[in-house]
């Protein structure tokens, strides 16, 4: 509850803690090779802000191994004939009949075929929306389309402004940058964070900068924690010194965005071999990407978007405000409040999938009395029609001139600047004025080559960017509405004298679940370009935590 800055729903947090032990049992039974002690029992380590060693791990790739365990369990069901997987398909719309979710519409990414799939209920486990920033630690394929399409049909979207920024990522190297790589936070255990005191030293070889000309800003400002301050504080402090022009590394768009993470003292104190033993693989990864040897010269780090706590609003059964539509994992908003603790994204994803949905879906289906639906039902045809119309529009912008990625980069930069680590009313209003313009430019000028009846990655991207262009706006609306600082949401107007986040529990202990009220249905929008009517979007206070 504290990790979520008292904005998480208590019942969900309680349940998550309750089933967390079962997750380890389940994964171990599947054959996930968790680290072991010499006695053969499971090993623990401290991780991501926890003061005690209580995290189970599998070398440096716990998430990867948990995923493979789930993958193998899934392939077992495929082998048994109980599950059919459809790879290279993308959900492009939801089918809602009489107010109840009854299926989805997909595009086959290889052949381009659009088809409906009908069902008694729909589960979205489609991940978060961190790629709204264009640059994030998410995989490139991550997008908001599935949950955003559901939102457009009425599923409330909760707390979109709660996004998590991770402090230790490799900084942007150039305008071609396509993704950011996360470095383990454990590096802060032995690395010292600093920037030059004088902006003129930004381009100097860091090793030649005298001790007296360095600003170890975390150690000075937070003597008790030093370099181990919580994630959000470390992130904002790095932004602050870079805003002051004291960032280091290559200038991208005229700005240097990076701070040093220096191991020289630790190497002197512990010896190179000890540091190599602790961080060898991370140093190697850094060298591979940045082309610099961190044993010789300080690493450069900068915060990056890592996780989105917001998502579709769900009840305790993980059902959204559209009956029959469920959302699991990062796609929902339920467990993390305003910030997420290390390791708990994996925990929530697996808890929802292994232990919550099997019970709650069964409960829903047991009481389900919906009529049989056929492919030629008016609503099914309407959903397929919406998808086809939209694809046609994406492929026939009146003045095609810019690539989908170029729009995505511009949107990402804007949302990152105004709704990233620090937000203020002026910046948010600026973004809220610019995003609709950019959206209009997009629908007029996006250039998609090829056809819709083949594998077309440009078309895939264009559709996803179109949805990010709407979601980015809702994030800013939500951030502007939330006149407090909490967890990953830092409103610069609301901070303590020491620059810490200042919550307003009286007014904001609620989940801001945004409805699609007042928004025109897509078919009615001018020239098909979806349009949000900003002033009419307002939070529906579904519940108070």
């Amino acid at each position, binding site marked *: 509850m504290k990790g979520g800055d008292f904005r998480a729903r208590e019942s969900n947090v309680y349940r998550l803690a309750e089933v967390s032990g*079962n997750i*380890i*049992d*389940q*994964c*171990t*039974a*599947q*054959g*996930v*090779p*968790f*680290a*072991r*002690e*010499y*006695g*053969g*029992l*499971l090993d623990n380590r401290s991780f991501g802000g926890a003061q005690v060693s209580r995290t189970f791990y*599998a*070398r440096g*790739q716990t998430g*990867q191994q948990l995923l*493979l365990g789930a*993958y*193998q*369990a899934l*392939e*077992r069901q*495929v*082998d048994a004939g109980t599950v059919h*997987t459809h790879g290279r398909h993308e959900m492009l719309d939801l089918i809602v009949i009489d107010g109840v979710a009854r299926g989805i519409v997909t595009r086959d990414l*290889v052949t381009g075929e659009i088809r409906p799939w009908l069902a008694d209920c729909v589960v979205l486990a489609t991940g978060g929306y961190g790629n709204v920033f264009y640059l994030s630690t998410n*995989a*490139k*394929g991550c997008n908001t389309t599935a949950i955003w399409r559901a939102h457009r049909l009425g599923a409330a979207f909760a707390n979109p402004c709660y996004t998590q920024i991770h402090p230790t990522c490799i900084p942007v*190297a*150039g305008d*071609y940058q*396509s*993704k950011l*790589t*996360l470095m383990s936070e454990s590096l802060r255990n032995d690395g010292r964070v600093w920037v030059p005191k004088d902006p003129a030293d930004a381009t100097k070889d860091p090793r030649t900068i005298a001790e007296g000309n360095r600003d170890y800003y975390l150690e000075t400002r937070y003597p008790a924690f030093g370099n181990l301050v919580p994630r959000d504080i470390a992130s904002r402090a790095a932004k602050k010194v870079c805003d002051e022009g004291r960032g280091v590394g*290559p200038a991208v768009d005229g700005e240097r965005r990076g701070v040093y993470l220096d191991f020289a003292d630790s190497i002197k104190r512990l010896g190179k071999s000890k540091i190599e033993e602790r961080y060898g693989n991370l140093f190697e990864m850094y060298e*591979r*990407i940045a*082309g610099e040897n961190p044993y010789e010269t300080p690493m450069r780090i900068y915060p990056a978007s890592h996780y989105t706590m917001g998502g579709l609003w769900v009840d305790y059964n993980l059902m959204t405000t559209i009956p029959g539509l469920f959302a699991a994992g990062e796609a929902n908003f339920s467990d993390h409040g305003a910030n997420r603790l290390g390791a708990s994204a994996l925990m929530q994803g697996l808890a929802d999938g*292994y232990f919550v949905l*099997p019970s709650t879906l069964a409960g829903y289906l047991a009481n389900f009395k919906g009529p049989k639906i056929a492919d030629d039902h008016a609503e099914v045809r309407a959903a397929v029609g919406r998808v086809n119309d939209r694809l046609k529009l994406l492929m026939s912008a009146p003045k095609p*001139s810019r*690539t989908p*990625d*170029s729009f995505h980069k511009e949107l990402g930069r804007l949302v990152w600047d105004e709704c990233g680590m620090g937000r203020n009313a002026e910046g948010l209003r600026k973004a809220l004025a610019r995003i609709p313009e950019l959206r209009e430019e997009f629908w007029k000028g996006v*250039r998609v*080559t090829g056809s819709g009846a*083949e*594998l077309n*990655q*440009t078309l895939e991207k264009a559709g996803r960017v179109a949805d990010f262009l709407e979601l980015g706006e809702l994030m800013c609306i939500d951030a502007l509405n939330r006149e407090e600082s909490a967890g990953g949401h830092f409103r610069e107007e609301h901070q303590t004298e020491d620059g810490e986040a200042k919550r307003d529990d009286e007014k904001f202990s609620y989940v801001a679940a945004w409805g699609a009220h007042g928004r025109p249905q897509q078919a009615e929008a001018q020239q098909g370009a979806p349009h949000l009517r900003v002033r009419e979007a307002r939070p529906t206070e579904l519940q108070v935590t």
Partner: protein
Amino acid sequence: MSKKLNLTLHVWRQKGPTAAGDFVKYPASGIDDHMSFLEMLDVVNEGLIEKGDDPIAFDHDCREGICGSCGVMINGMAHGPRKATTACQLHMRVFHDGDEIWIEPWRAAAFPVIKDLIVDRGSLDRIVQSGGYVSVRTGAARDANNIAIPKDDADLAMDAAQCIGCGACVAACPNASASLFTSAKIGHLALLPQGGPEREDRVRRMVLQHDAELFGSCTQHGECEAACPKQISINFIARMNADFIKTAVTANADLKQREGQ
């Protein structure tokens, strides 16, 4: 400081599975040597889209070397020249100004080309479907600490479990064998007590599925180990073969015994 490279790319372009493909030459100029290989392709593609041409299709997702989506032959080497590195983690500083780079999809009968550099690796999924799992029902697991596992065994299983299923081993192998992949999946579970009860059945089914998918046999060239971005040891193939032979013998004996009864 970054350097700028001017390169010539020869990229395999192929419309679809049944279409004929060929190399097409593209200039890639002003390439920053800090770019990753895929970012270099992004830049070339942005230029192609702006000209109204069809961009080069390639698979990618995590871009941090763990998802196994990316992977192309770069100058005849799976994932390119740098050891233990996926294509997305390969950076342009390994190339020199004026270099010619040949980029091809994985070549194997079991990996049909979908488009350009994208191949269908569903055959690897089907190998896993043939027993590459522990049969445990979700929700029915016993306490994890009831099974003590020697640390060395857990560590070795972890070495095998690192396989990301990218298919580089197949592309590098002169026989287009997926033995390294299959043996890593088998080895991971064979080394753990949880995988014990199904060990014999698993190795038999997975090896037979491997062959049915038209992957070739292992003749110990060792190219797979050299190309593997996760440095999975060829020793796992030896373990797989030993298990398979043992299984073949005992299965025969069991069968004879049953027939005799």
